[in-house]
């Protein structure tokens, strides 16, 4: 390493108090930012669980629908109209709704009921025990074995309970990639049974799942559906729509955004303040270096280096700490929704760079103005 940077590093490391304050301050700030954004990412990800789990390329819905949790039923003619749009390979009805399950011990539990198109079973989950074909048996339901499985008394194949006063029998257990956000058990059945057994409005179809013939047809399908007075979205667009809803139309998004900003400002002020003190403490030394013959650019290098060192260390420790915390929380809490994404890491990294840049800036301003004559005069 360049000798001057080595000196800079020694000046920093040997000031143990300030060094620790700087690293801990940035670590703490990164930790908080990562917690906030990871939690939010987890919430967004899990709130879009149905979209991912069903895996349809396109979804047709009422234009007022914002999230997959709240569907607005559509009349049957829409399905026929969608099917006749050129470029549509196939379109199937899809039901999502809530059912009230009465367990054998007499207690109640709400559950998400998903109804798959009877003919194709499009959007079916991965079966882990039993057979998908048993879904056609009387009163058959397939239970998703996830964190909320135990809420229905951990049913086995053959277990029965009542859903909305109709008998229901578990015929298979299934797995879905993304757990839901709302802590509800999930039961799959056929579209027909779901719409018969659950009290519903005049219209029945929650969503129409569409497979376009090719990606090129998507825009035209969206256009055609729009003319029907409905909304067609690709799965990605639907996920984005769901994200936007949580980000901007619930208190959650703005609050988490504000908390993230506050964590950033806390880190910025702790690091900025401490770094400023550090530079002030070393000001006469920087002045002596200047008098001896260090160029301004070299002093700037030293300061930038010092601030980057604490920034990177704080970033590393902060990410490590929050990842560990999230990993532990996920082990302990079944429904814990948090995930560290590259976007979150990138955001935290940018914020750390801003903290380092700000700290350097106030340090550099000071150091540039040192007059070596003042050092000389004592």
């Amino acid at each position, binding site marked *: 390493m360049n*000798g001057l940077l080595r000196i800079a590093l020694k000046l920093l490391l040997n000031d143990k108090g300030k060094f620790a304050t700087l690293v801990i301050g940035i670590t703490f700030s990164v930790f908080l930012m990562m917690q906030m954004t990871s939690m939010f990412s987890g919430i967004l990800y899990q709130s879009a669980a149905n979209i991912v789990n069903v895996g349809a390329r396109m979804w047709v819905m009422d234009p007022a629908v914002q999230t997959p949790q709240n569907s607005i039923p559509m009349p049957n003619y829409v399905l026929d109209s969608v099917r006749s749009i050129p470029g549509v390979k196939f379109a199937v009805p899809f039901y999502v709704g809530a059912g009230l399950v009465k367990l054998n011990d007499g207690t109640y539990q709400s559950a998400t009921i998903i109804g798959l198109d009877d003919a194709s079973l499009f959007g079916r989950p991965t079966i882990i025990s039993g057979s998908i074909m048993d879904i056609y048996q009387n009163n058959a339901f397939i239970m998703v074995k996830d964190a909320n499985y135990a809420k229905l008394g951990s049913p086995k194949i053959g277990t029965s309970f009542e859903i909305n006063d109709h008998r229901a029998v578990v015929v298979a257990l299934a797995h879905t990639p993304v757990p839901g956000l709302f802590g509800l058990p999930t039961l799959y059945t056929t579209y027909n049974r779901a719409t018969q057994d659950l009290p519903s409005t005049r219209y029945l179809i929650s969503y129409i799942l569409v497979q376009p013939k090719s990606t090129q047809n998507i825009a035209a399908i969206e256009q055609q559906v729009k003319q029907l007075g409905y909304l067609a979205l690709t799965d990605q667009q639907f996920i984005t729509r769901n994200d936007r809803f949580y980000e901007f139309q619930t208190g959650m998004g703005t609050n988490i955004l504000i908390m993230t900003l506050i964590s950033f400002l806390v880190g910025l002020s702790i690091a900025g303040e401490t770094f400023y003190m550090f530079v002030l403490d070393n000001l006469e030394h920087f002045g002596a*270096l200047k*008098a*001896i013959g260090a160029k*301004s650019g070299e002093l700037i290098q030293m300061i930038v280096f010092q601030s980057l060192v604490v920034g990177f260390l704080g970033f590393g420790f902060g990410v490590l700490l929050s990842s560990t915390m999230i990993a532990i929380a996920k082990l302990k809490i079944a429904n814990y929704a948090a995930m560290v994404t590259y976007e979150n890491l990138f955001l935290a990294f940018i914020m750390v760079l801003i903290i380092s840049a700000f700290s350097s800036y106030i340090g550099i301003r000071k150091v540039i103005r040192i007059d*070596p004559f003042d050092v*000389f005069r*004592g």
Partner: protein
Amino acid sequence: MILTATKISKSFGEATNQTYALREVSFAVDFGEMLYIVGPSGSGKTTLLSIISGILRPDDGDVVVKDVDIWKLGSDALAGFRLQTIGFVFQDYHLFPRLTTLENVAIPLILRREPWDKSLTEARKTLQVVGLAEKENLPPYKLSGGEQKRVAIARAIVAQPDLLIFDEPTASLDGDTGRKIVAFVKEHILNAQRAIIIVTHDSRIYEYATRIIRMEDGRIVPGTGADHEK
């Protein structure tokens, strides 16, 4: 001549409370000299020292060091000039408390982009010259005042500068230590390839000067500096 200063003037402050620290000061220093600049406090000694060493820009006049008119240099070139040519012993040392004594001494070499290990090896040799070899790993504040002064001297000479500048080298030292240090400098550090300029008002060390310039009120007292003065 290693250094020629011609008609140096410097004032501080504006209009009404302007003070003239230096008025047309001219003098020259030759290789092998240990020149003292003496005079009462406020007479302009430190100001003069700063100007001839490239730290403080004069209002007027030229300073030529080893054929370079230093105040015609840009700021980076001037910093380079100080680094290559001048060794400073500041009045209050300005040693780095968070570096070891050895690292402190090595700084001018590190600033000259010498490799780290070579810089420390040279610094170690120089610490031996000033008799502090066994203190190299201590931070400077663990040393006595006289030892710190010697560390500052070691740092000033480690890069073999042509011109050594001392401001009040005996201030804050007891008389005996001060004298010993100046005697040491004259015996071991002064040679025919360099010059040493010492600012002091400590008459107890005048005996070591090869020449003394006396200043008063921003001017060199006429007739001084022409010869040895005791």
